[in-house]
């Protein structure tokens, strides 16, 4: 932590004042006791017990997932070392880094994160603040999963070459420390950028640019070489030709990646395997420098928080007056009724909520990735027929938080819905309409991407996929409305981290979505097994009619359900962050 004394705020007046010896330890104990009391008190209510049960279950699930990946990495690294393909070892380290980086975003609604900002009112030293920030980061899903993956890598390499244990242990420890610090630093900075409109817009623009780049990159890499491929051999030939084209690029990328942390960690192992301790030590040292740099970047951010930075963004009075006339217009949904007002408000709120935009847009990226996978693995060069429905299924996942916690972002504003003469039914209906339009747009985009990348599947697949969408949407909306009323949780839409989350809601919504997907998959597989492809569409449409009926019934009962859970809902969403 010595290197952190230069960060802004760290040298502030509170830092310079000498705190009594043992105070930090006392504060850690108090914080631990507070967390324990919070946990114990959370079990006083049925909802709290359900949350705890869901948390245990989800941690068990992710633990299994982590263990599975750990075993995979273990076997992978073992195979690479024993088969002499050690040059591919960096790939595994890069994958671990990506998992470490991506999981916090994917798992945002699955884990409760503690906002340490509340500690700043107490005489907590910057060192303690930094340390606590790191410690609280250690108990999240990404760290646990990443650590398990590292463990798997370590075991795999050690079993293959036991003499490498000290080196790989050291390299993996520094690599893990780097990842923990990097992830915390990135999300701390993103949260800071999302806190202000100007920086938020810049981050949004960068995000959109990245999306576009990904969209262009994937087709550029794969599309040309698969056009017109008919047989397996022809496809293999195309693959080889494409590979030889990108080989120079890969060589250059390899030269760059070996100086980056995952590459350095892998190189430490490779040098150690070649019995070259000095370069191995250099690699670990450089990796340590990267970790230190990540720590400094994190410290810089936390230092500003610690110093009590103000992220207020009041425009100057002159500028505000200047803008006044221009602002009077503004986008409207048309119509005067509450429905239009709510849709309009939802559009505005979504536009300003990058994490939700990301959640909605991210599956599109993965659709592109899937499309690449299908192109490579499609049977005998023909378009993989079920690629379209699978892409649509994936597109729906981005809507989990929007649909299943559709009141969560209202905060104290939830009271307005109960105070105004607009029935909750209308509020939910408007939100459902907005989410449906958005979902249909994303589904169309996902479908279009899949069609462009893979070509048009047979007509029965297109029809059945559309029918499944008509079935899935009301199913999700029905369950989403119910969960939103009885299991809502407050979210701060401007933050990626420090969210409350609800394991109960997340787990149950995942189960419902899996159920909807399973029904679709069952219909598809039955119809394709019995070669009755066209039957899938009417069956799914029939199910859609039932789902729409259930949605209408659910909406009809929304008022009663809302009134029954009104107090808990208001208490949950009005609770101070």
């Amino acid at each position: 932590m010595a290197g952190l004394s230069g960060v802004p705020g760290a040298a502030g007046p509170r830092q310079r004042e000498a705190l009594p010896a043992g105070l930090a330890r006392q504060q850690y104990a108090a914080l631990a006791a507070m967390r324990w009391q919070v946990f114990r008190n959370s079990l006083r209510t049925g909802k709290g017990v359900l949350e705890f049960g869901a948390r245990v279950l989800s941690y068990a699930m992710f633990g299994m997932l982590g263990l599975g990946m750990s075993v995979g990495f273990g076997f992978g690294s073992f195979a690479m070392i024993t088969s002499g393909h050690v040059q591919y070892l960096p790939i595994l380290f890069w994958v671990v880094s990506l998992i470490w980086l991506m999981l916090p975003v994917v798992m945002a609604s699955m884990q409760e994160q503690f906002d340490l900002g509340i500690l700043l009112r107490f005489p907590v030293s910057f060192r303690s603040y930094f340390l606590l920030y790191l410690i609280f980061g250690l108990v999240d899903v990404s760290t646990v999963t990443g650590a398990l993956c590292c463990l798997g890598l370590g075991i795999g390499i050690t079993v293959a070459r036991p003499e490498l244990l000290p080196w790989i242990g050291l390299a993996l420890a520094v690599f893990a420390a780097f990842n923990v610090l990097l992830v915390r630093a990135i999300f701390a900075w993103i949260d800071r950028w999302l806190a202000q409109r100007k920086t938020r817009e810049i981050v949004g623009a960068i995000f959109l640019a990245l999306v576009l780049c990904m969209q262009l990159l994937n087709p550029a890499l794969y599309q040309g070489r698969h056009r017109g491929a008919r047989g397996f051999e022809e496809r293999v030939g195309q693959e080889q030709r494409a590979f030889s084209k990108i080989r120079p690029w890969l060589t250059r990328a390899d030269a760059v990646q070996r100086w980056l942390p995952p590459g350095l960690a892998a190189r430490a192992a490779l040098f150690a395997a070649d019995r070259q301790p000095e370069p191995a030590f250099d690699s670990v040292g450089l990796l340590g420098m990267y970790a230190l740099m990540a720590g400094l970047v994190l410290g810089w951010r936390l230092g500003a928080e610690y110093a009590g930075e103000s992220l207020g963004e009041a425009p100057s009075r002159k500028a505000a007056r200047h803008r006044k006339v221009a602002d009077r217009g503004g986008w409207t949904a048309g119509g005067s009724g509450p429905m239009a007002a709510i849709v309009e408000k939802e559009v505005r709120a979504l536009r300003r909520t990058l994490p939700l935009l990301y959640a909605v847009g991210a599956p599109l990226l993965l659709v592109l990735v899937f499309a690449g996978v299908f192109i490579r693995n499609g049977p005998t060069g023909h378009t993989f027929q079920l690629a379209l429905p699978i892409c649509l299924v994936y597109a729906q996942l981005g809507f989990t938080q929007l649909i299943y916690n559709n009141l969560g972002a209202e905060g104290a504003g939830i009271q307005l819905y109960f105070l105004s003469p607009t029935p909750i039914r209308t509020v939910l209906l408007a939100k459902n309409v907005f989410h449906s339009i958005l979902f249909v747009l994303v589904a169309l985009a996902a479908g279009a991407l899949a069609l462009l990348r893979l070509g048009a599947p047979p007509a029965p697949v297109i029809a059945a996929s559309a029918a499944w969408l008509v079935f899935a949407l009301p199913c999700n909306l029905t369950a989403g409305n119910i969960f939103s009323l009885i299991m809502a949780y407050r979210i701060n839409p401007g933050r990626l981290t420090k969210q409350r989350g609800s394991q109960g809601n997340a787990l149950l919504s995942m189960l419902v979505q899996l159920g909807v997907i399973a029904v679709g998959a069952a219909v598809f597989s039955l119809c394709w097994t019995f070669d009755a492809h066209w039957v899938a569409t009417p069956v799914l449409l029939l199910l859609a009619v039932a789902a729409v009926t259930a949605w209408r019934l659910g909406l009809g009962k929304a008022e009663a359900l809302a009134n029954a859970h009104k107090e808990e809902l208001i208490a949950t969403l009005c609770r101070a962050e």
Partner: protein
Amino acid sequence: MSAARPPPVLRGRQAVAAGLPAPVWLPPRGLLCLPHMENAAIQTCGLTRRFGALTAVENVTLGVAQGQFFGFLGPNGAGKSTTIKMLTGLLEPTAGTMEILGRPFGAGALDLKRQIGVVPEGMALLGRLTAPEYLHFVGRMYGLDAGTARERTEELLEFMQLADERRKLVTDFSHGMQKKLALAAAVIHGPKVLFLDEPFEGVDAIAAGMLKTMLAGMISRGATIFLTSHVLEIVERLCSHVAIIHQGRLVANGSLEELRAGVASALPGAEDGRRLTLEEIFLSIVGAGGAESAQELSWLA
């Protein structure tokens, strides 16, 4: 109002300790309601709310006439906000009935909700909107057409001195600005009954002065205001009638003069004709136990 209005009620520890006579108007045990007021804006009968074993509000029976500026006072945790939440449909009463503008009121009374404006405890703001967007949204939620909502939004922003902050998100507003916005949202639809839970908390003196003028104007045009505040000077200046709730029970209810008359005999020095302040009345009714405790905190600097 005057025909049906009850005389002031004094109960609670202080009243008992002072040996005040039992209020003559109290109905016999079991009969908890006041006679029906003809022009009542708010009337409750035996309003009770329990949270498990805790009774937050117990048998609150009161009437507020139309056009009255009514102050609802009580120490922290006395049940003021719980009462307001029940009166505005945010909380279901465990027992008792309530009428707003002469009609039974419950969560489903949507037509009646159009006549009510509320600044609730949590202010009910939507942080991701700007002030004009929020006011426009609230106006339409209360059934105003888009044009009217937009016009009133502009007027209210000017009035509340928020017009310069139109690009700022509500979540970035200071507490005082949020309070002003919540007040603007509570009146945008021109309510006949206004419930204000601590409306002056965190509002600067200039804005508070404007708000008082606005509220007085509403009263002169026939609106009814039900206000809770810890700033007793403001309540004394604005309200014609006051009720005091203590430990969930209504312990006093009447005009300021009636309350003064009620406690005068119990307060030393009040007999010499000195006009008692609302603070003195309030402390004499709910007690000032905190004063003695504070003296015991010898470790405080």
